[in-house]
């Protein structure tokens, strides 16, 4: 079971994870956090290959994916 967690406290909605994802698992959601940033959300978790690229490129250490 793959889990993709986005920490709403730390995320600043820069969308870099969405740009990097090779399988286009993430997209911009309609949710906003307490600071008004629009968070990403996982739409197609089954397509996720757990490559951890989104975890490596996140400037705010806000995303986590179940390790391989």
């Amino acid at each position: 079971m793959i889990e993709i967690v986005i920490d709403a406290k730390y995320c600043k909605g820069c969308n870099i994870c969405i740009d990097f994802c090779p399988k286009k698992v993430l997209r911009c959601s309609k949710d906003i956090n307490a600071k008004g940033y629009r968070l990403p959300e996982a739409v197609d978790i089954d397509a996720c290959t757990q490559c951890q690229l989104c975890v490596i490129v996140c400037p705010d250490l806000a995303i986590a994916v179940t390790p391989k």
Partner: protein
Amino acid sequence: MLKHPMLEYIKEEGSSGMRLPHILCPGCGAGQVLNYTLHAVDDLIKEEGVKKENFVFISGVGCSSRLTSHYLDFDSGWTIHGRSLAIATGALLANPELKIIVFTGDGDAAAIGGNHFIHAFRRNINVTVLCVNNGLYGMTGGQVAPTTLPFVNTPTTPYGNIEDAFDLCKLAEVAGASYISRWITAQPMQIIKAVKKGIANKGASFIEVLSQCPVHEHETPVDSMNALKEITVPVKKAESSDKIPVGELHFAPRPSWTERYESVIEKANQRLS
């Protein structure tokens, strides 16, 4: 709850409350460089058995320099503007076993700290310098810096910059650094590999990361990051292009300053006994 793996090395909470989220703007390249460096350090600690106590992070003043003592759960120093390399030299004198990583920006390294920059490389002190180069003075409002590319508009050059930019990698090579590479923030795996190589190199290693500054470039973080791909070219194809070469630019190991200093101590001891 599942958490980002690198939060293991971050002080999330301090005496004055929560430290994270950090002060950097959304999509800042300095945050990405912190993440890449922590991944490299994590690999060294878990796979090669380097002790966590041996890592020391030192920085000066600027956006990228806010990364060290505020957030990192390592020994770290947030020091004087431009003088982080001088303080790294002192730390190495006290304990030559340390693995020192210096976070610096283009203003910190090339503008105010230019002299420390060249002399640290001339001495070939055993440090890894990570320079987050966004080509402007981000913290003070995006003014023109020595690394701003020609004809770029900034608040202090509203009709375009008339000066040529500093090539920090060439400067480091001429000064005598033994490992030099340049990357852009959109090259995560290459930067992690370069940081590991820089730490393993016994001598001065200089890694320049061309970074986006979405706030002062007035673009979205993704567009700003991808715009760097347009102005750079891999080092193998650099000869037929006038773009900025990225990749491993120079690797020529030579005896480091600490090695030579130890030989001097040995000689002095022999003469005294």
